[in-house]
């Protein structure tokens, strides 16, 4: 008798794990931007493109997780 059974794709678990890092990273990017604009409001426009670049570079890790989750889909038998 099976006490607990897990069926389906392991990619779901893998993506959950893969999203932790980028989640923290994106949080840090925006936290730093808010902090810097609070300290120096006139610098907001200068630092904004760099915030988006940083955000995009970090975010792509989570998106790679989505893409690779579909490419290397393993299933628990």
């Amino acid at each position, binding site marked *: 008798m099976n006490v607990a059974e897990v069926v389906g794709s392991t990619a779901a678990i893998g993506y959950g794990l893969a999203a932790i890092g980028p989640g923290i990273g994106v949080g840090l990017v925006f936290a730093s931007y808010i902090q810097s604009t609070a300290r120096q409001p006139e610098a907001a426009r200068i630092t904004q*493109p760099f915030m*988006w*670049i940083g955000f*995009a570079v970090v975010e792509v890790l989570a*998106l790679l997780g*989505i*893409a690779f989750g579909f490419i290397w889909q393993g299933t628990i038998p």
Partner: protein
Amino acid sequence: MTGQTIVLAADVPFPPTVEDFFLPSIVPWGGDNVWLTKITLLVWLSVAILIVFFLWAYRNPQMVPTRRQWLAESIYGFVRNNIAVDMIGREGVRFAPYLATLFTFIFVMNLWSIIPFAQISPMSHIAFPIVLALISWVLFIYLGFRKHGIGYLKHALVPPAPWFILPILVPIEFFSNFIVRPFSLAVRLFANMFAGHMLLLVFTLGGFAMINSNVLLAPISVLSWAMTIALTFLDLAVIALQAYVFTVLTASYIQGSLAEEAH
């Protein structure tokens, strides 16, 4: 009659798969032919809309802009001033036409994912982002070689660092500048559109799947469809953001190639 479930849509296949992105062809209707699908149609429509809109807006330019001229000018002005000049500097004006084309094309292509009856973005097929990323990749490498000659390789690959660390740094720089850059540009745009479409599918079809399995789950189905509407607005933000990010990153790579001294 008891035990009969309300069938809103017969046999909704619940977990949406990658297959849902490969739509049947239009001519012949419903066939396997890939030459004219909704995706192809939407790409041609995007191109047509952009050409017609900008020609129409500039047909009879006035000193005091008319409303349509103002719209076209503010889009172009945004890319020119806030992306090209801010990122590249004064010589960035040269690249404003390319960047503006890139921005508007990606924006319109992405926008199809939330427009009723279209509701899928051609960008959710990786072929289209790959071509755009390759154009940007060739552009910044070409500009680098034209500006620095063969010295561009040193400019791009050899950072100012002590000699004994260079054997590690040079391969890393090569990998990140010439391989990861185009790859991440393409995958970022593709995966955002893919994930956005997938999310909307999960919440829409999930609502049907729940109401089909048990009528008592109907309130949760309604919640699921409400989430779909909320996520559509989130998708709108992602659409504009990805068009902006792709353009800004292209501009920053161009700036890197044109910079006088290394980094």
